[in-house]
């Protein structure tokens, strides 16, 4: 049993080495597959970061009538925080609103002067609300419009921002589903290409498989070395892929970070190098092994 196992490994390695050109071609195709898969993964990561960034920029503000007491506002705040859809609520008091207003318009002396001339603070206190999902703002707005709060609230800027929020919402959903669909399609295509190139490699060995059968080799003894070869395709392709990606991300990373609101792609790659390696290795080895098994099975049938 152990001897057979050793022989299967030995022949797998020997065949991989002796079929130099065939192995090179198959490994190249598999490397391309793994590269495409990595790029798709990275694109998904980048897209998610960009979308999360955009979503973070959306919020709605509730402005309270001037005569509303702070305790009442804080009560509304704590009630809002209890809602499942709400991620974060921040309170901006009248004073704070005034400070922010002054800061924002410090280059506009006319505006500041006219503010000075007023004897009271005309700015309303407000609550800034961030939802967990972009599509939840409508229900938060509904909650605020309920009868109980009507007397306290001056206005909710949801209606003004409604169109933008909904449009962004649609973009987020479209990009996510579209990206996923496109990735799945591309992944399927590269899988099929690899599968077929391995099948062709085995096709060239069909006579050999027949001869092995005739000299009395068991099915496993015939299949084994091909399986080892398939796994080797995956292993070598993974190593080659990582060797290509490492310098690629190193040089491209500064350029990508320049126009996208994300951190360093290279350092992300470096931190996750082991996971990337294991993931690609898993895909490569399973794809290689699986494809050879299916291809050999056809010629093993009597």
């Amino acid at each position, binding site marked *: 049993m152990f*001897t057979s196992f050793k022989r299967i490994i030995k022949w797998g390695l*020997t065949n991989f080495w002796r079929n130099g050109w065939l192995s090179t071609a198959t490994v190249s195709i598999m490397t391309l597959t793994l590269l495409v898969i990595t790029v798709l993964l990275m694109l998904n990561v980048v897209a998610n970061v960009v979308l999360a960034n955009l979503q973070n920029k959306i919020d709605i503000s509730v402005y309270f009538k001037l005569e509303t007491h702070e305790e009442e506002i804080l009560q509304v705040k704590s009630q809002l925080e209890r809602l499942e859809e709400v991620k974060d609520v921040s309170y901006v008091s009248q004073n704070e609103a005034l400070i922010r207003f002054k800061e924002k318009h410090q280059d506009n002396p006319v505006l500041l002067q006219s503010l000075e001339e007023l004897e009271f603070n005309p700015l309303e206190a407000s609550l800034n609300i961030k939802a967990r999902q972009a599509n939840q703002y409508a229900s938060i707005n509904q909650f605020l419009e309920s009868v109980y709060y009507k007397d306290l609230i001056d206005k909710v800027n949801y209606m003004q921002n409604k169109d933008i929020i909904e449009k962004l919402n649609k973009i987020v959903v479209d990009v996510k589903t579209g990206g996923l669909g496109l990735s799945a399609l591309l992944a399927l295509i590269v899988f099929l290409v690899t599968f077929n190139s391995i099948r062709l490699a085995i096709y060239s060995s069909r*006579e050999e498989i027949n001869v092995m*059968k005739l*000299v009395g*080799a068991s099915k496993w*003894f015939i299949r084994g070395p091909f399986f080892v070869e398939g796994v080797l395709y995956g292993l070598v392709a993974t190593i080659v892929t990582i060797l290509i990606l490492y310098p690629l991300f190193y040089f491209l990373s500064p350029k990508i970070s320049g126009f996208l609101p994300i951190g360093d792609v290279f350092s992300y790659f470096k931190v996750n190098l082991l996971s990337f390696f294991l993931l690609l290795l898993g895909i490569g080895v399973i794809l290689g092994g699986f494809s050879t098994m299916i291809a050999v099975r056809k010629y093993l049938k009597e």
Partner: protein
Amino acid sequence: MIEFKNVSKYYPGDCAAIKDVTFSIRPKEFVSIVGRSGAGKTTLLRLLLKEEPPSEGEILVDGRNVKNIKSKELPLYRRKIGTIFQDFKLLPNKTAYENIAFAMEAAGRAEEDISEDVPQILSLVELVDKADNFPCQLSGGEKQRVAIGRALIHKPDILMADEPSGNLDPLHTWDIIRLLCRINELGTTVILATHDREIINALSKRVISLDRGRVIRDEENGRYIV
């Protein structure tokens, strides 16, 4: 002991490759099966190897019906029958030594046995100095001798040769035939399928003649008459 009892083989379209063939071969016999191309020689051998089942009749080897051999037992059964072919059927990516050793490895034999037996076989087929050559580096006759060496490695009871000289020049042909005779003298049943008139007439051993799938003649010290 090999027995063919009323064996027929039909291919799709009602084309009969062999029809109602009956004969038996005793242990240690040297039998030639002759006939023109398409007479059914190769089909006969394929049925014996259980590469395909007969449509009718039964084939017994040492009293056992070949039909009843399960696919798991098939490798074991085939090791008892050494086979050589017109096109040699060597593994192109393995050297002469490895081609012979592979058959032993496939049978799960120990490394010591392999390193002992393979050189012996190589010297029997006179290929010691070509042990590390790949098939593409060997002549036709040398390739056939590797194939014979491989067929003999399990010390089979039966050696089947399907047109072994079909691709060889007369000189190499006689090399191979002499080798087969020697193997037969050492106690192995040899079945030789050929359409080479000269070989058959010179051998003066038992000849079974086939024509369009039927046995038309079966004689000791036979000659090629079709």
